[in-house]
């Protein structure tokens, strides 16, 4: 393994780690959304079905950014696109 490849791999690994910082956003956002959903269900238990459904869809949308980060990280680690 020559030096250049090693640097690229090291950079990819660091990049993958940095990409996973994207997980912070969805984590906070989804926690907030679930908290609000709990409040909504506590206030109106009869609407729990609709609230839960909406919450899951919202969470899924909020999670996309985290998923993008995950995909980038996976690409960097396993596919090593720059080598």
């Amino acid at each position: 393994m020559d030096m250049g490849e090693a640097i690229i791999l090291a950079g990819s690994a660091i990049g993958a780690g940095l990409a996973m910082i994207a997980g912070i956003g969805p984590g906070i956002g989804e926690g907030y959304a679930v908290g609000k959903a709990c409040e909504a269900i506590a206030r109106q238990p009869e609407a729990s079905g609709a609230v839960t459904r909406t919450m899951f869809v919202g969470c899924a949308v909020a999670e996309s950014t985290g998923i993008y980060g995950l995909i980038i990280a996976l690409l960097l680690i396993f596919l090593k696109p720059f080598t």
Partner: protein
Amino acid sequence: MSSMAMMMLPKVLTGPEELSVEGPAVICSFNVFGLTINFTETVVLEWIVMAIILGVSIFLTRNLKVKAVSKRQVIAEMAVEAITNLVRDTMGKRWLWFTPYIATVFCFSIFGSLISLLGVRAVTSDFSVPLTWAAITFILITWTKIRYGGVRGYLKGFADPIPVMLPINILSEVATPTAMALRHFGNIAGGSIIMGLVYYGLASASRMLHMHGAWLTVGIPAVLSLYFDLFSDFMQAFIFIMLTMVFISNAGPAEDEAA
């Protein structure tokens, strides 16, 4: 000594020796009009999944009766009514004809993901598969917009509210299916990679503890598999159909305007 014993064990018992992250295997490929058409593992697995789904639905709907229903029929009716109610609640009554497509994507997605429990690649961890469904959704969204607004209305929608927004609107239009496909693929593929890592790690740990066979991989991954396979697969299938329904029904006018 231990490596000798491991050599004799079948590969299933020794666990993965290395972690491989690869796409599906290509069984054969054709050349049609200069395009390479690959016939991959994924397609074979899709056929298996389709056979399972159709077999189950034929089994469930065998000799249906109006009175004195069997358990099979109750399950079939509950499934049909549940998905019909979901479509009615989410999209409204005029989209009820859409129900079989939603059921198709839901079943295909969930069984295609769950087939990974049998030890093969999940169908949905091939990016082309969710991308196809997202493309269908995109086509349906566009079709709905043109149907209710006309071609002019559809094109005008891109310059809404001011013409400067044109690139952003085009981007958001394309981002919708891309995000759906990526989300589905990322969740399932990420989950399978994490499960692969867990198996690999546990198999390595077994080897390090000089076990004959990867006994640590028995039972322990099941807990993680509950989340990464069962829950995640179900949620992704559900979210995919929910987003499909919401986007398509939002592309048309509101229920009371259309009626």
